[in-house]
Structures are given as structure tokens and as C-alpha cells.
């Protein structure tokens, strides 16, 4: 269809466009863009990476934090916060040793612990290289960053029982990042409460220092991601 009839039809359409209309259109477009970007973020590929989670959080969290009444699981990663510079900073604080199998997107699992509605602390775990396999080490922390409980979820080796015993774990209770800053977990040199922790299996020096590094890593990560932000 061409000619006068189409001109009439065309002239019948509403042609007036006010500034208000344009603004509404712009706002609508922005909302559409935001929704689209949100969907894109949802659709972003999730690369597999191994994080450290409690096997049975519903029973482990009350055990590690007896006064807790509930907990909430949250996830954080270097990719979400400071990216590569923050990862390098954390590695430097841990003695400059590059972290093994820890890409920026590795999700760290954190259990926020509540007593009633009040947040009273955290339970957090890390993976650390041990002599015969991974060391999965958890600590429960109060809101000041002081260790309330120490728990080895996974450890390989004939001496594992010596390290998982309550006697060994009690040595970590009451320690904080300040105590670990006086001790080099890479060279094993330093002073203070951390230096006083006794190795129950001298033949397993790799695992012993691995555990100390794991606790320090735990405290440094918590400091960078939460305590520093809360201060």
C-alpha cells in the first residue's frame, strides 16, 4: 500500500513527544539495562574451585560456638572485593608464599554466628597444603577476632589423631592475629604464644607448620574481608 492512503494513516498517528515522555523512556531504558546486566551476571560462567566448607554445619557450628542460637552462611571471594592486588597483599602478609589452587573466584565460606538476633562471631575455614594431603582448618572467632575454638576437619597421615586431639586444639584458644604477627609461619621463627605451641608429632613438621599457616591465613582473610571493614 503506497500513496495518499498511507499518508493519511501516517498522519493519524500520535506524533507529539514531550520532554517528560522522553525522560520516562530513558528511565525505562535504564531499568531494562539494569535487568539485562543482572541477568548477564547470573549467566556468567562459574568456574569450579574448591572452597572449605563444614561437612555438617548444623551440628558443627553449635559445637564450635556453643552459645550460638543460629547461623547464616555467606560467601566471599577476592574477585568480589579487591581482586588480584588484595590477593597479593594477603599472600605478602602470609610470608610471600603463593597460594596453591586459589584462583580469584574461589568462594570462601563464612558462617556468621548469632545469639538471638545479635551477631556474636564467625566460623571460618581454609584449605592448606599438608604433608600427605589437604588440611581443612576451621576456627571460631568472636567479634574481636579472638579464637574461641580450633577444628581440623580433614588431615591425612598416621599422626592426624595427635593434631585433632582437644589438647592440641586448646593451644589456639584465645589467640588473635596480633599473636600470629609475632611469628613467621614460613620460617618457623618468632616469639610469643604462637611460638609456644607444642608440636605433638615432631616427625610431622610439614603438617604442624601447615596448621599454623592455615590459622594465620584464616585470621588474615577475616581481617582483610571483615574485621578491617567493621572497624
Amino acid at each position, binding site marked *: *500500500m*503506497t500513496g*495518499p*492512503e*498511507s*499518508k*493519511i*494513516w*501516517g498522519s*493519524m*498517528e*500520535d506524533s507529539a513527544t514531550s520532554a517528560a515522555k522522553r525522560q520516562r523512556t530513558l528511565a525505562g531504558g535504564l531499568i531494562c539495562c539494569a535487568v*539485562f546486566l543482572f*541477568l*548477564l551476571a*547470573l*549467566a*556468567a*560462567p*562459574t568456574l*569450579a*574451585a*574448591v572452597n572449605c566448607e563444614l*561437612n*555438617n554445619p548444623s551440628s558443627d557450628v553449635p559445637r564450635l560456638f556453643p552459645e550460638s542460637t543460629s547461623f547464616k552462611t555467606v560467601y566471599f571471594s577476592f574477585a568480589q572485593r579487591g581482586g588480584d592486588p588484595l590477593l597479593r597483599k594477603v599472600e605478602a602478609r602470609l610470608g610471600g608464599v603463593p597460594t*596453591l*589452587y586459589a584462583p580469584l573466584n574461589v568462594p570462601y565460606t563464612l558462617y556468621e554466628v548469632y545469639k538471638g538476633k545479635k551477631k556474636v562471631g564467625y566460623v571460618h575455614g581454609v*584449605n*592448606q*597444603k*599438608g*604433608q*600427605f*594431603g*589437604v588440611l581443612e582448618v576451621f576456627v571460631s572467632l568472636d567479634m574481636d577476632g579472638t579464637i574461641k575454638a580450633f577444628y581440623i*576437619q*580433614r*588431615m*591425612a*597421615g*598416621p599422626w*592426624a*589423631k595427635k593434631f*585433632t586431639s582437644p589438647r592440641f586444639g586448646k593451644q589456639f584458644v584465645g589467640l588473635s592475629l596480633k599473636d600470629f604477627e609475632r611469628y613467621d609461619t614460613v620460617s618457623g621463627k618468632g616469639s610469643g604464644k604462637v611460638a609456644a605451641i607444642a608440636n605433638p608429632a615432631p616427625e610431622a613438621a610439614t603438617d604442624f607448620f601447615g596448621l599454623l599457616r592455615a590459622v594465620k591465613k584464616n585470621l588474615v582473610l577475616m581481617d582483610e574481608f571483615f574485621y578491617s571493614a567493621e572497624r
Partner: protein
Amino acid sequence: MITKFQVAYRNLLRKKMRTLLTLVGIMLSSWVLVSLLGFNRGYERSLNHDIENMGYQLMVMAKGCPYEAATMMLQGGTGLRYIDQTMVDSIAKEPEVDKITPILMQAFFDPNKGDGGGIAGYYGVDPATFPGMKPFFRFRQGGWFRDETAAEAVMGYEAAELEQREVGDMIIVPEKNVTLKVVGILERTGTQDDGTIFVPLKTLQKIAATDKITTIGIKLKKDADSAKLEAELYKLPDVQVVSFTQVKQTIMKLISTARVMVFSVAVIAILIAMVGVVNTILMSVLEQQQEIGILKTMGAMPGDIFRLVWTETLIFCGCGGVAGIGLAFVLARMTDILMRRILPYAPGGGLVAIDLRLALLTLTVIVTVGLASGIYPAWKAGRVRPLESIRSDGR
């Protein structure tokens, strides 16, 4: 000069919200359709990939339910059913067999894994024949074992990542306290091999104090008669044969029921969207009866009006279809994740495979169904009587 498309386009813009909602309906239905078609293709492709990456097409194991064997493994490996390794030589003589490899699956209880302990699984493989079954394996670090009795291990990527192992590190076999040196770490394969720890067969047999095996993997010659070989293998005493073709068929059968249901939902979604199109166009025709009447008085034929209204339908379906396909491309990964959560078994790799051909097919379906549903409103518009419509005063 204003073209038919411009006229139809401007006409649609008269009722923006109505047009938008109808477009969203078409977009969603075409998204569902293309995603499902993509899933149909992607699932089968991934399943084939997984089966091909097994390296062998047939597995021979001791008689008994494989699930039972798996359960027993999880309970400590004490009740595993074994077969004699001499069976490998007799099967190798069959003319259909290209390659054959003996495997020993062994599980040990690790009391230090978690609170109640856990199971650590090992895969004993023959260094002479197993690598030939998996030529696609690529090493991230190191390589295969030095010899068939070496106290060494090769770890899948995820097993190494989980245990934080590198080449040169040691692992310990729980229960037995035997240490093994990690000599190789594989690149990701996207299959179960990623979580496997491979040990030389003889080493694992020594650790487990057995001279038997649990499985024989068989790769067939090209164009070999699988059914004939299976029949021959069933003549062997106390064995059962698992054919991956059968496994694939079984899985596809399980999936097909769900697929039919989901396709039905997609068809319903398309029908609802098309009812929306009919409704929108019909409303538009009724609202513009006067304009149509004027056009007719100026010489427009019923065919012209029909084509004009049909063009509106075409724009609806074309734009909605393209938007839906675009959405499906963008959200393919999310659809993949959702499917994996829903399905009891999902093979590795992309489950939703959408390509240009599939996109064009979907667009064709949407446009064809849309045009078909636009016939009635267009026909009704073509039959409008000019004088009656002008006198109707917009009622």
C-alpha cells in the same frame, strides 16, 4: 514515501504497553522453545562426549548389580566383587576387540576424614594399556608412571586441587599407610576422571593384597559388531557386561519422558503467546475501523488491508522471536545451571547447545505460527465495510 512496514510499526506504537506485553509474551515463548531445543541437542552431545571419553565402549565386571558394588565400595571396599585377571587374555582374543585394559577399583576407609571418617577411592590401571584408552588426556604437570610397580599416583585435576597436591608431593593410602608419590596431574577433562586418583595396577593390587581386578575396559574395533561380542562375553562365567550404548539409551529414555513434558509446556507457552498476538491485533483492528474505512474509500483493496495487518503480526513475531533467541543465547549458561540442578544425572560440558541453525529454526516456527494466528484478524480487517465503519464513530 511511507512503506507498509513503517505504517504497521507506527500503528503498533499507538498502544505501547499492549505492544510491549505482547512482545514479552512472544519473547518468553521463543526463549523457552530455543532453550529446550538447545538442551535436547546439548544433552545428547554431552552424553556422547562423556561416553566417548570413557575410552572404552564395553565394561566387563563380576556378576551382580553395579549399584550394589558401588554401595559396597562406599562401605569400605570389603565386599567388592572381583574377577580373575586371566580373563583379560581370553577376551583380548576376540576379533572385535581393539584394545583392552584391566582395572582395579579399591576404596579404603580414612578415619581422619571429617568427624566420622570417610572413603578414599583409588583406581588401579595398567600403565601399558590404560593410557592408550585415554589418548585425549593432557597433563598439567608431570606424566604417567615410571613403571608398573612404582609407588606413584597420577591425579585428576579436581582430586589434586582438593588435596592441594603438586607433582613431587606425597599422598598416603589410608588404612594401609602406604605413601605414593604424585608424578602427574591431569588437565580438566570435564568427566569423572577429574576426581580420580590413578595408581599402577600392580601397586594397588599389592596394597589391597589381591591379585584380582574389578573391571575390564574394552575398546571395539571400528565397525565391530558390539552385540556379537556382548553375546560372547556373556558366555564367560559370572560376569556381566555393561555397554555404554545401552547406558546412553537408558539415560536418554529416562530423559525423554521429562523432555516430552517440557516440550508440551513450550507448546502451551507458544499458544498462549499467539492468543495474545491475535487479541492485540484484533483489538487494534477494532479500534481502527474508521481509518480502515477511509483507506477503503480511497481505493485500498481488502488484500492491501490484509497485508497491512499481517505485517503487524510479522513485526510482532519477528521482533519477539529475535529478542527471545537473543535472551536464550545470553542466558544459556544460567539455563545450563538450572537444568543441572533439576536433572538427576547431567553429563559434563554444556547442556544447552544453541547455534545459528537452531536459532533460525525457532524463528521460523515462531513467525509461521504467528502469521497463521494473524490470518483471522487480518481477514476481519479486510472485510470492514467502508461506509458502515466511517458512520460507526469509533464505536
